């Protein structure tokens, strides 16, 4: 049992605790930024992690909401960037020789990004859950029903976010490996997210086709039957994109 635990911990060596602390701080900030928000009884997880609600913003942009969503994404992408810089780029040579094939190495990277995405989301849900129950409820924030809402809704939010984060992580990894410049790939990813989000807000009828809104629960069919995207189809598309990125990187690495 101890050996299994030791082996598991060794396999998780790539997780950077200071980065997780930074992520936690981000979630705490997001929690406090939620105080005083009128939200028609929306579950607090959805309210913080759900993204930007589909509604008529009268041609203006909900900048605070947009900023919050980009904060969630950027901290996650920083976690991935830290992983890329430390494990992927620095240890690439050693890992190649141990895996002996690009395919096995790539599967290892995707597994690690999956672990990072899950860890990030678990931290997020835990902090929002605990803070929601203690700090926010003491402040009588009745407009946001603390921890109230259907389990199915929270589960759906978790799955939607997880697949989107996994996709973004693989996307960032692929383009960093191709361009050899993490900052460029990070900036590119954020610009794509940001611009498609803005487009999705200004033209909600197009939002279901835009990658920038794919992880946003509040823009899914579960929330808006008119403009929302159908969650299983979007998840399917993201999985297909991950597979396509995998094919691109296999070809690129072998061509080197």
């Amino acid at each position, binding site marked *: 049992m101890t050996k299994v635990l030791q082996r598991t911990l060794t396999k998780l060596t790539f997780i950077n605790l200071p980065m997780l602390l930074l992520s936690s701080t981000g979630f705490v900030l997001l929690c406090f930024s939620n105080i005083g928000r009128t939200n028609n009884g929306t579950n607090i997880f959805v309210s913080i992690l759900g993204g930007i609600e589909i509604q008529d913003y009268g041609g203006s942009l909900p900048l605070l909401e947009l900023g919050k969503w980009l904060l969630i994404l950027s901290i996650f992408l920083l976690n991935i960037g830290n992983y890329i810089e430390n494990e992927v780029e620095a240890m690439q040579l050693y890992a190649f020789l141990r895996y002996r094939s*690009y395919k096995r190495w790539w599967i290892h990277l995707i597994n690690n990004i999956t672990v990072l995405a899950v860890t990030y989301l678990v931290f997020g849900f835990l902090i929002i859950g605990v803070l929601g129950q203690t700090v926010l409820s003491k402040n009588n924030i009745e407009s946001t029903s603390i921890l109230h809402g259907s389990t199915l809704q929270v589960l759906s939010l978790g799955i939607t976010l997880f697949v989107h984060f996994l996709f973004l992580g693989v996307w960032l990894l692929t383009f960093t490996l191709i361009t050899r410049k993490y900052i460029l790939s990070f900036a590119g990813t954020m610009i794509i997210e940001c611009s498609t989000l803005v487009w999705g807000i200004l033209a909600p009828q197009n939002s279901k086709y835009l990658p920038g809104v794919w992880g946003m629960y509040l823009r899914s069919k579960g929330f808006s039957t008119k403009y929302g995207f159908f969650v299983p189809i979007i998840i399917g598309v993201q999985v297909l994109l991950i597979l396509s990125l995998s094919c691109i990187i296999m070809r690129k690495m072998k061509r080197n």
Partner: protein
Amino acid sequence: MDTQEIIKIENASKSFKSQTVLKGVNVTVLSGQSFGFVGQNGSGKTVLLKLICGLMYPEQGRVIVGGKQLGKDVDFPENVGAIIEAPGFISYQSGLKNLLYLASLRNRIRKEDVIESMHTVGLDPNDKKHVGKYSLGMKQRLGIAQAIMENPSILVLDEPMNGLDKNGVKDIRTLLLKLKDKGVTIILASHIQEDIDILCDTVYEIDEGNLVFIR
């Protein structure tokens, strides 16, 4: 292929943009031999070592390691330990944790073997210092430890004495001579003539993309 031939490079050429780094190189390395490559900076020593490790493939010709053509039969050769260019590790973990993590990828050796390899290169496995705070010499020692810890049959070393102090150079030379006696095939690229003289049976110089036999 002769069973003694552990590495065979046939007519391998490699160029970057308009610059040809290797021109139709042919080398055969027998099992247990120690090969040295010398040459000026940028002469193509590292490129040649990368071809042997499968980290690059030649545009022409082929590289066969352990009877398998790299890039065709396998992506990377089996049972090779290597240190090429500056050794990179997870900077926020200790040396031991880094090596244990790398060992977990193949899961062939025990923790005790990892600890022994650290002792062999003169590093303290109980040192909790993060690798990010290591000196260049300590990183180099850790790089050598990761290369030898899984008892590879081929050791590919690119400037292994980089950053090492006088005692460090002496220790690593002694270590490599021991490994050579054990039958490990050593491929060494260095600009330090003394290392080449002491450690290598066969020496080639890379001059304008061609291999020139020295001894």
